[in-house]
């Protein structure tokens, strides 16, 4: 029975990947259905962008107030999903998973998930994780550690797992922040649980644990995914290690790295390379991996990602080196250019362009080229501290921060 489920998982994932790759070749947009997009690499595949943002800004489709959370917006069809919180007094409140109409921003459903996570340092209360949109359910993870599957259509809770109670996970200082990864019929999480339950795969329909592996605490990182020779690799960055598991939970390889506790998730590119970066210590490494192992190719200090994940395009990595937008060679690590003035912003790649969101809510379109920083227009999208990266689908960019969210048509 177990073998059957696993085989089914692999087949459905491959089928899904093939479907989307085929779609990509036909320039059909791929849904931004989970944290950092479908491939978890911050790339809005299958989308195009105009060469410039109009001087008077793009058309704003909607903008609305929202409750505090750092969750990104995920998109599937006519609905978008995110998380938010509402305070009932200064020390308590509630966290919700919410669905909105993509065209209007009107709320479709709002489901209570957990009590609120209060940030002792005042960075912002509420959820940190980004919901993932599966076949039937939306998977959200609260700041206090409850993974919940809710119906995409009406928000009804199908199942819920409390990581603290079930796995002995410890709430990190700034709350649980990792975002669910969807692989076929699995929901994969860094759990940070005791008794070799650092990394757990759940049955997407039932919430039952399919496999649990590894030692490690709850961090602020999220798993990435790669596919080599038809085999899925789930890559976790935890502590100073990279871990790779296949969909069955078998350990494929482990790599000790000089990068300690990265927050930006491992960025897979060229199908068999992974870039990880942290704001302290060494800065970054690029490692090459296959089915059986991984080795460090280069390391450097020209890129030190904090909470914002870099993107890869055509041989180069673009990201925030502390608070400077920077382009480095993915082959040599050499810095190509730097542009300051965006604070600790975030970015995604659409077509051959970067959409950069400054930490003050301004969107800047930048040509993804190593030649020079080339700005292609900008506009103030939202106001105030903005630490949540944008999402993109079907020509529209979705942004949010702790107080508001908005959608702009960039076509």
């Amino acid at each position, binding site marked *: 029975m177990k073998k059957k489920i696993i085989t089914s998982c692999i087949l459905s994932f491959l089928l899904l990947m093939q479907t989307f790759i085929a779609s990509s070749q036909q320039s059909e947009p791929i849904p931004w259905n989970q944290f950092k997009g479908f491939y978890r690499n911050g790339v809005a595949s299958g989308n195009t962008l105009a060469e410039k943002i109009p001087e008077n800004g793009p058309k704003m489709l909607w903008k609305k107030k929202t409750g505090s959370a750092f969750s990104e917006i995920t998109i599937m069809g006519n609905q978008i999903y995110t998380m938010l919180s509402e305070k009932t007094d200064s020390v308590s409140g509630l966290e919700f998973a919410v669905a909105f109409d993509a065209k209007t921003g009107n709320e479709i459903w709002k489901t209570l998930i957990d009590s609120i996570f209060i940030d002792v340092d*005042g960075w912002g209360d509420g959820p940190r994780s980004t919901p993932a949109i599966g076949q039937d359910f939306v998977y959200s993870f609260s700041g206090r550690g409850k993974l919940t599957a809710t119906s995409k259509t009406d928000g009804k809770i199908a199942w819920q797992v409390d990581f603290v109670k079930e796995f002995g996970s410890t709430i990190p200082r700034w709350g649980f922040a990792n975002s669910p990864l969807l692989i076929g019929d699995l929901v994969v999480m860094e759990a940070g649980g005791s008794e070799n339950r650092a990394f757990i795969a759940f049955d997407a329909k039932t919430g039952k644990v399919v496999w649990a592996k590894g030692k490690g605490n709850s961090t602020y990182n999220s798993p990435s995914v790669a596919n080599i020779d038809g085999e899925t690799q789930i890559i976790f960055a935890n502590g100073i290690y990279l871990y790779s598991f296949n969909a069955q939970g078998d350990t494929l390889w482990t790599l000790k790295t000089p990068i300690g506790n990265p927050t930006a998730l491992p960025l897979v590119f060229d199908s068999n390379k992974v870039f990880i970066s942290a704001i302290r210590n060494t800065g970054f490494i690029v490692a090459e991996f296959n089915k059986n192992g991984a080795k460090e190719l280069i390391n450097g200090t020209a890129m030190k990602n904090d909470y914002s994940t870099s993107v890869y395009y055509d041989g180069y990595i673009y990201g925030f080196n502390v*608070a400077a937008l920077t382009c480095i060679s993915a082959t040599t690590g050499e810095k190509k250019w730097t542009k300051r*003035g965006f604070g600790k912003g975030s970015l995604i790649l659409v077509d051959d362009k970067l959409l950069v969101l400054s930490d003050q809510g301004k969107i800047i379109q930048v040509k993804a080229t190593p030649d020079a920083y080339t700005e292609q227009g900008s506009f103030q999208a939202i106001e105030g501290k903005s630490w949540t990266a944008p999402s993109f689908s079907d020509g529209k960019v979705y942004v949010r921060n702790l107080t508001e969210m908005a959608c702009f048509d960039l076509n």
Partner: protein
Amino acid sequence: MKTRKSHIFIFIIALFFPASFFAQTADEIIANHLAAHGDLKKWKQIESMKITGKFTAFSEQKDFFCIKTKSGAYYSELFLGKNAVIEAFNGKTGWTIDPWQDILYARRLNSAEENVFQQKALFFTPFFDYKEKGAKVEYTGKQNIDGEDVFALKLTKANGKIETWYLNTSTYLEFKCESEWVDFATPVPAQTFFDDFRTVNGLVIPFFIERTFWQRDRILQIENIEFNIKLDEKLLVMPRKEQMNKLEFMQGDWNVDLEVFTRRGTWYKTGATNSDINYVSTNLLQENINYENYFAYSKRVDYTYNDADNKYRISVFDDLSSTFEIFEGNFTDSCFTADNCDISYTAGKAENKSCTQLSICNIEKGSFILEIKSSNDGGKNWNPREKYTYTRKIK
């Protein structure tokens, strides 16, 4: 062969003259740099600057102001995220109230912070009168940083700290500075970037200053600059802890009458002496008193406030017996009372059945009474022992 000879010649020349070559170049660069900042005569007339604007820390943009003076004093009120921070520096020493460090009251700056405040207090560039300030400059060559051609100048300051300044080769204005900064009072390397130069009253000043150190990113965006604003010197005086202000009635020079409690249940005057009580720091009120009670005693009494357990802590040093005693207590009603019943000098809770109490009551403008009591049952019952009546000396 001829080329080789000329190379050798140039090499020999370079061996003998490089210092003067570079010194000359450094001086030229600095002269151009100072000129680029506007009229030097006007700079020399500036006694102080008040800067207002926005300061961004942790991506939160908040109001900011600072006042800096020619003498190197600096005072600022700003926000770091949710916390309001105050910084003050008199040119040599200073203090800060920074709740991020879990210290809610003023604390003195350490030496690494003093170096940072010297940087903060600069009007615009460290190369202004740098020789008079005891600094040395070495030109280390041209570089390209982030696409910007720059002159690199190594600045060794009088305090021994080294900074590297990168000046734009076209404008001679500063582009970047590498210096030592602090994060949680610990030295860390910092990079500071300067931009948005504007002319104010003929003076050229960067209105955008971004500094990154460790994982921090701080941005100062200047909105307004006022010149020759008087800095209220009182702002630079390190404030006492609020709780220590409650002990202010004790500060001064006192006549002290000494009495002991007799077996007959009456007070008996044994003598008189003097006492001086003064704040020696913002969290330390110190009393020195000499008196005779059979033997001659010389005691020093330190009053402090301990935030960890929200109590006053008093230490009494007796030179005759060479002993310290520690008391803890607080104000209750109109008296200040402290005892040593719960004080333990070993691990674990004290089981001190025999203990002493200091009680200060009858507090008036020119007098107060300190009573010492004993207990043999852990503080349940107190027996009077000694009484010290303080009367303020009239100057």
